[in-house]
Structure formats: C-alpha cells, structure tokens
C-alpha cells in the first residue's frame, strides 16, 4: 500500500500514472503533461542562458576582458539575452504553472484547445533547436535587440537563423496566449464569475493579451530583418530612404509589452503565495486585478522609452516618458496591496513565502529605478550603461525568477505529489537573495559611474565592482543548482503530499495531489470568492 494521503475511495492513479510510454508523453493532450514537458525544456534553456551569463561575468573580472575577443563577448551576451528572454522568461510561468493550473483554477477538465497546446510545445522546441543551432554554430553578435543596420547589413553572425528560430517560437507564444484567453472566457466552472477568479488567472489573462497582440509584430519585424539580410530588400536601409528607427519602433512595440509578459505572471504567483502564507484574503482584490489589466494595456503605449537617445522626435519622447510614469502606477498599487495583505496577517516563512518576499523587495527596487530612467534627462546619462542592466535584472531575476521559484515550490506538491525538503529550500532562497544582490547592486553603481554595457573591456577603476558582481554570480549559480538537486531528489524520496498541504483556498487544492487526468471527478460549483480565509484569530497554520 503506497504511503499516500489521498482519501480512500478517490480515483486511483493520477495524470502521472496514466500511461508510461514515451508516446503517451510526446503525444499527450493533457495540459498537465504538457506543462511537465515545458518545464523540462525551460530548465534546459535556463541553464544554457545561465552558462552564457557565467562566461560574460567571467570575462569581466579583468578590465581588458578575460576572453580576449570582443566578437566572442558580443556573441555571449547575445546568447544570454536571446535564450533568457525568449526561451526562459517569456514562457516560464505561463507554460509551466499556467498550463498546469489554469484548467484546475477554472474548474475545467482541460484548456479550450488541447491539441493546439501540444502543438505549441513542438513549435517551442523547434524554435529553440533552430535558435540554439544558430547560437552555437558561431552565434550572433547583435545583442538580443537585433538593431539595424548591424543586423541587416554588417553582422557576420547567423542572424537569419536566429531570427527564424525566434519567429517559430513566437507562434508557440501566440498559441499559448490564444488558448489561455479563450479558456478563461469560456471554460469557467458554474459560479466562477470573473470576480471570484484567483488573481493568478487575471494575471495570466493579461499576459495572454500581450502575447497575442504584441508577438505578431515581432514576427513581421524579424521577417523584415531576414528578408533585408537575404535579398537586400530593406525597408530599414537608409541608402534608399528607409528608416533604421522604424526597426526600433517595430521591435520595441513588441519588446516593451514583452517585459510585462515576463513579469505579469510573477505578479500572479506572488498574489497567490502571499494570501496563503499570511492566512488572509488579498487586500484590494479589485484593485489588484484591474491593475494587471491596466499594466497590460498601458504597456503598449510606452515603448519609445527605449529610444530616447536614438534620434526620435523630442515630442514623441516626451509623450512616451509621461506614459512610462503612468504604467508604474498599477505596479505600485499591486505592491501596496501585497503589503496590505500581509498587514495583521499570520505570516509563515516557508520557502514560497521567502521567494515572494524577496520578489516584493527586489521588484520594487527594480521598478523604482525604472522611474529614474523614464525621466528623459536622467536617461541621457544612464542609458546603455550598467544602470539599465541592473534595473532590468532586478525586475527579471530578482523579481521574475524569484517568483518562478516561489511558484514552483508552492505548487510542487500539487504537480508532483511530493513535498520538497523545506530547510534546503529556505536555504536556497536565502542564498539566492544574497547572491543576487551581490551580483547586481554593484551594477547600479557602475552604471551611475558611467560604465557602458555590452563592452567586453572597461576602464580599470571599475574593476572592484565588477569582481564583486562576478563573485555574486557564482553564489547565484550555486543557489540555482540547489533547487535542481533537491527538487529532483524529492521526486523519488520526498514526503508524499496531501491534496492541500498549505491549507490554501483555490480550486486546484480541492483535487488530489497529483491530480487525476480529468482534474475533477465532478464539475465544481463555486459559491464564494477566492481567498476565503477565516479571520486571523481563528487562523489554522499548516501542520
């Protein structure tokens, strides 16, 4: 008799035991299995992108650049950016936690289009394979931003191949976003009105809107770059009257919403963890959910802030600057709501909560520094320096990666049916926090002092800060390897998880861990809002 906490009389087996052949995994249409397939893929991509980052930081420990070659360095930071942006950050939470949890949170048996879901994974793998081939067979030196005319005319790297790979993966994103939007509209269980949905669903809905609206513009942009490079027919070519800035407008029309694609799911994860580990309903539910929608909408109006010194008109720059200040408001509202949720709550410092707390602090720092660079005059000095690098890494790594790990730990019992080892997890979270700050805080100072980004060598007076940053990177790398080790260990030796180990609210906790293939034996009927925790005096912490 397996040591299990599933109640007698419930369905035997789970989605994990529903078929053991390779075929049953590679041809599955079960959203939970597809989430696992994606989890394996993005883990691989994360470590590839991390390897590139490690080499970048290694290069920067001496002022003249340890690797010796600017060309090699350019290809490394391009690899890091391309892999991390398109093959880790954009997909991470949506395709793993989103795919797994959305039907469960909706009380549905699968997404609206399960075969499209499987197809999206294959597209992702194909795009990833093509891109990795381009990056390893010599690489690309343009940065993940592919600016023209370097990318279209002068680069000697595998630009077209990389563009094709990213183009293909873009269709994977669009398919995922389409599936999520239609599912959230059409597959909600009886009684699950919009305002009874957990915040995670609102966040993923907003993310999906970005995916479907912005990614097509990236697609046409990459296509135009490839066509110009291959056939010398270029709308960006100034020699025939083309406008190189047109590329930047088109690119950033996608890429600014893209950074919100990366962070919105993180907001959603944190919004689920904080109420659970504060034993309290979320503060200001309607504000938080509409803030997600507002972020998604306004994110389309701010892209010009990446182009303040590119030569655009001053009037459009001013407009984009004002709009960029506007987009910070809903993000700030969310931070206040999370704090309000914790206020007078019963805080439990389990690993997911540590990650969520780290997220709040680090995301706030990253976000505030965004306001500095949204100011035109300040940006003239700070743009293309390490200040920008630190700004977005605080949000993406300090924020988003923390949220990803937080969510992974929070829902690990549900996904795998096992508990992870709590002390190791808390230690990893702390090591990650320390390593992260040591890596990236010096970069704020470096940028302020004027060290440019994407340069393989630097002035000698910057060395101490660079060495600190690289040292932090080694600690960070160790912190990422820890979860890889103990999470894998837990799959075989971890304590078996009950249906609801955190005593959390939410439909996904009302079904066994791991869930059966059909998710729910009977369609749930929802009668109350999310986060219906008892008042704090009667809070029951988990055992």
């Amino acid at each position, binding site marked *: 008799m397996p040591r299990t906490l599933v109640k007698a009389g419930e369905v035997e087996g789970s989605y994990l035991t529903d078929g053991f052949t390779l075929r049953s995994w590679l041809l599955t249409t079960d959203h939970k299995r597809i989430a696992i397939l994606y989890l394996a893929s993005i883990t691989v991509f994360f470590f590839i992108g991390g390897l590139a980052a490690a080499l970048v930081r290694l290069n920067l420990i001496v002022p003249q650049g340890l690797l010796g070659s600017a060309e090699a360095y350019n290809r490394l930071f391009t690899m890091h950016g391309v892999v991390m942006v398109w093959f880790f950050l954009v997909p991470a939470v949506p395709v793993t936690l989103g795919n797994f949890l959305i039907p469960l949170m909706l009380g549905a048996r699968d997404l609206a289009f399960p075969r499209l879901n499987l197809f999206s994974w294959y597209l992702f793998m194909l795009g990833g394979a093509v891109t990795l081939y381009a990056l390893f067979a010599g690489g690309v030196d343009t940065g993940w931003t592919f600016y023209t005319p370097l990318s279209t005319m002068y680069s000697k790297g595998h630009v077209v191949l990389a563009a094709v790979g990213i183009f293909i993966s873009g269709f994977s994103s669009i398919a995922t976003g389409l599936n999520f939007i*239609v599912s959230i*509209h*059409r597959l909600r269980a009886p009684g699950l009105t919009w305002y009874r949905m957990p915040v995670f669903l609102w966040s993923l809905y907003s993310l999906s809107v970005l995916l479907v*609206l912005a990614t097509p*513009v990236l697609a046409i942009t990459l296509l135009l770059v490839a066509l110009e490079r291959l056939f010398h027919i270029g709308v960006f070519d100034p*020699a*025939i*009257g083309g*406008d190189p*800035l047109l590329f930047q*407008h*088109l690119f950033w*029309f996608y890429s600014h919403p893209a950074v919100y694609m990366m962070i919105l799911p993180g907001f959603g994860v944190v919004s689920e963890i904080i109420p659970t580990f504060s034993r309290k309903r979320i503060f200001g539910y309607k504000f938080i959910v509409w803030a997600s929608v507002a972020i998604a909408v306004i994110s*389309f*109006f701010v892209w*010009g802030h990446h182009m303040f010194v590119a*030569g*655009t*008109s*001053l*009037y*459009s720059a001013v*407009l984009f600057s004002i709009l960029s200040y506007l987009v910070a408001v809903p993000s700030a509202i969310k931070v206040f709501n999370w704090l309000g949720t914790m206020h007078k709550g019963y805080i439990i410092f389990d690993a997911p909560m540590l990650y969520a707390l780290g997220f709040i602090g680090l995301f706030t720092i990253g976000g505030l520094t965004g306001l500095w660079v949204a100011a035109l005059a300040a940006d003239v000095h700070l743009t293309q320096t390490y200040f920008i690098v630190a700004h977005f890494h605080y949000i993406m790594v300090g924020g988003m990666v923390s949220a990803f790990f937080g969510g992974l730990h929070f829902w690990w019992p549900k996904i795998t049916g096992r508990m992870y080892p709590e002390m190791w997890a808390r230690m990893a979270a702390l090591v990650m926090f320390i390593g992260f700050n040591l890596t990236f805080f010096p970069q704020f100072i470096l940028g302020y002092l004027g060290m440019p980004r994407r340069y393989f060598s630097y002035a000698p007076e910057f060395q101490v800060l660079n060495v600190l940053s690289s040292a932090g990177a080694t600690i960070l790398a160790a912190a990422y390897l820890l979860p890889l080790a103990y999470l894998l260990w837990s799959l075989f030796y971890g304590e078996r998880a009950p249906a609801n180990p955190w005593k959390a609210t939410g439909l996904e906790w009302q079904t066994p861990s791991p869930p059966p293939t059909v998710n729910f034996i009977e369609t749930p009927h929802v009668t109350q809002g999310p986060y219906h925790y008892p008042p704090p005096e009667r809070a029951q912490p988990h055992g």
Partner: protein
Amino acid sequence: MAHPPTANPVAAELWRLFRIWAALLVLGGAEFAASYLPLPRSLRPLVILPGALMVAAVAVGFMEVKRGIVLARTFAVAAMFWLLVLLALGSADPLTRTDYRVPNAQVR
C-alpha cells in the same frame, strides 16, 4: 402547405449575401473613382476610406461579426483598436521628427 420550410431561409440568406457582394463592388468602384480625384499628395491616403467601408461590409455581412457571440465581437474590436494604437503612436515619431535629408544615393 405551399412553401417548403427550408427553402425560404436559404433564399433569403443568399439574397442578403448577394446584396452585400453588390455593395462591395459598388464601393470598390467608388474607391477606384476616388483615386482619380485631384487630391494633393499628402491627402492621397484618404482614398482608402471606401476600402474601410468594404472591410466593415465583409466583417459584418460575410463574417457575421454582429450576429455571433459577444466574445468574437470583442476580439474584432480589439484588433481594430490595437492596430490604430500601433499605427497612430508609431507615426507620432516621423510626423514630429525634424529630418535632415541626404540626397538619395544609388543603391549598391
């Protein structure tokens, strides 16, 4: 009884579609004729306006965007809105930028 129950709905529907087709051809002709108007260069893009009506006719008449579920309409409206955002905000820069033109070089 005289009328078979299924023939009329189809005939009525086909007649409706025929009227839309005819309207599209008329609008197409109007657009074609409009291109002969002596508009100054910068106003020439207005020629596209009858085309916009044709797009609406296809969306409403053939794609039945008004008859279908609300969600479909929402998506269609969203498409138009975000297209406008892309084109309008994207045009803000060239329309307000001072450009210092260089003479067109011969292409390599």
